[in-house]
C-alpha cells in the first residue's frame, strides 16, 4: 500500500502549474514538508471544506481557467462534506478534479476507522455525475490524472493509501502567509 507522502509527491509533480488545495492535518503537513510549492494552498483546519473551496476557485476563475483546479481531500474530510459532491455534480465545472486519498481512517486523530471500508466514495461521486477512477497504486494514480486531464466536467480519483502518517514537522506558518503565497501565485500565473 502506498504511503500518503508518496502519493502527495506525485500529485505535486503532476500539477506544477495548476492550483492545488490540500486538506488539513497530516496531508497539508506532509505535502509542505515533502515538496512545498507556491501553487499549493494548505488548509490547516476547516476539515471537509476543500471540495467547496475548489468549487469556488473553479467558479471564480470561470473562463480564465487553464488546466485543472485540484482538491486533495481525505476520506474523513470527504464524508464530512458529502453534499459538496452534489453541488459540484449539479454545476459540472469543466476543470475541477478531486483526489481523495482514502486510508479508511481518521489518521490525524489516532487512526479511528471511517466508513470507507464498506462504502466507496467513488460510487457516490459516480451518482453525482463525476467521471471517476479507482486505484491503489502510484502508477494507477498517474494514469488516472492523465485521463482526467482529457475529460470534460468534474473528475474524481479515489486512491487507497496506507493508514499511517510520515513523521514530519508541524505546519505552523501564519495562514495569512499561506493564503497570500497561493493568491499571489494565482494572480501572476492565471489572470
Amino acid at each position, binding site marked *: 500500500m502506498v504511503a500518503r507522502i508518496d502519493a502527495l509527491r506525485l500529485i505535486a509533480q503532476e500539477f506544477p502549474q495548476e492550483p492545488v488545495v490540500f486538506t488539513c492535518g497530516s496531508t497539508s503537513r506532509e505535502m509542505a514538508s515533502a515538496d512545498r510549492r507556491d501553487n499549493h494552498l494548505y*488548509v490547516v*483546519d476547516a476539515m*471537509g471544506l476543500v471540495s*467547496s473551496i475548489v468549487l*469556488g476557485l473553479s*467558479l*471564480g476563475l470561470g473562463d480564465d481557467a487553464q488546466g485543472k483546479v485540484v482538491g486533495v481531500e481525505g476520506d474523513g474530510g470527504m464524508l464530512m*462534506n458529502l453534499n*459538496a459532491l452534489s453541488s459540484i455534480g449539479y454545476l459540472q465545472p469543466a476543470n475541477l478534479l478531486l483526489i481523495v486519498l482514502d486510508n479508511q481512517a481518521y489518521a490525524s486523530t489516532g487512526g479511528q476507522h471511517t466508513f470507507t471500508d464498506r462504502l466507496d466514495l467513488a460510487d457516490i461521486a459516480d451518482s453525482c455525475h463525476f467521471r471517476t477512477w479507482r486505484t491503489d497504486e502510484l502508477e494507477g494514480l498517474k494514469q488516472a490524472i492523465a485521463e482526467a486531464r482529457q475529460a470534460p466536467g468534474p473528475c474524481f480519483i479515489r486512491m487507497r493509501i496506507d493508514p499511517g502518517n510520515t513523521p514530519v514537522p508541524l505546519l505552523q506558518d501564519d495562514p495569512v502567509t499561506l493564503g497570500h503565497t497561493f493568491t499571489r501565485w494565482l494572480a501572476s500565473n492565471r*489572470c
Partner: protein
Amino acid sequence: MNWAETIVESLKKWNTSLIAYVPDISIHQVTSLIDNDPYFHLVSATREEEAIGIAAGAYAVGRNAAVFMQSSGFGNSINAIASMCIPYRMPIPMFINLRGGPGEFNIAQVPMGRSTRPILDLLGLVHFTLDDDYKMDKIVDGAMKLCYANRQPVAICLTQLLHGGKLA
C-alpha cells in the same frame, strides 16, 4: 430604492459579483434580483458551510464573493468562518436573515437567532443589524468598505422588521 435594491447596489459598488447562498424566503427578495442581473454569478449551496468555502475559493482567485443565509445557517457555517476566513483573513460579507426577533412564529428559530450576534462578538467579527432602511445605504456601503479594509468577514443582519419576515 427598497432595502433589497440597496444591497444589490452596494454589492456592485464593491465589485462583489459571486454570491453563494442557501435559499431563504426573506432573503429571496434580494437573491431573486441577483439571479436576474447578469452582473452576478449566483451559486446555490446545499449548506452554509459550503457557501463559505465557495466564497473563500472565489476570493482566492481575486473575485469578491458574498454569502446570504439565515441565522440557523450561520450556525452551520461557524467552523468554516472560524478556521478558514478568520485565520486566512478572507473578507466575506455575510448577509444573515436574523430570525428569533419581534414577529418570530417558530420557537425553534429563537435560540440560534438570538445567539447569532453574541457568537459573532465571540469570534471578534464586526456586525450591523438593520431593523429599517433608515441610512441603510450608508450602513451597508460602510460595512462592505470595512469588510475589505479589515480583511475579515462582516455580518449584516437583516431582521423581520426590515424585510417583513415569513408568513406562518
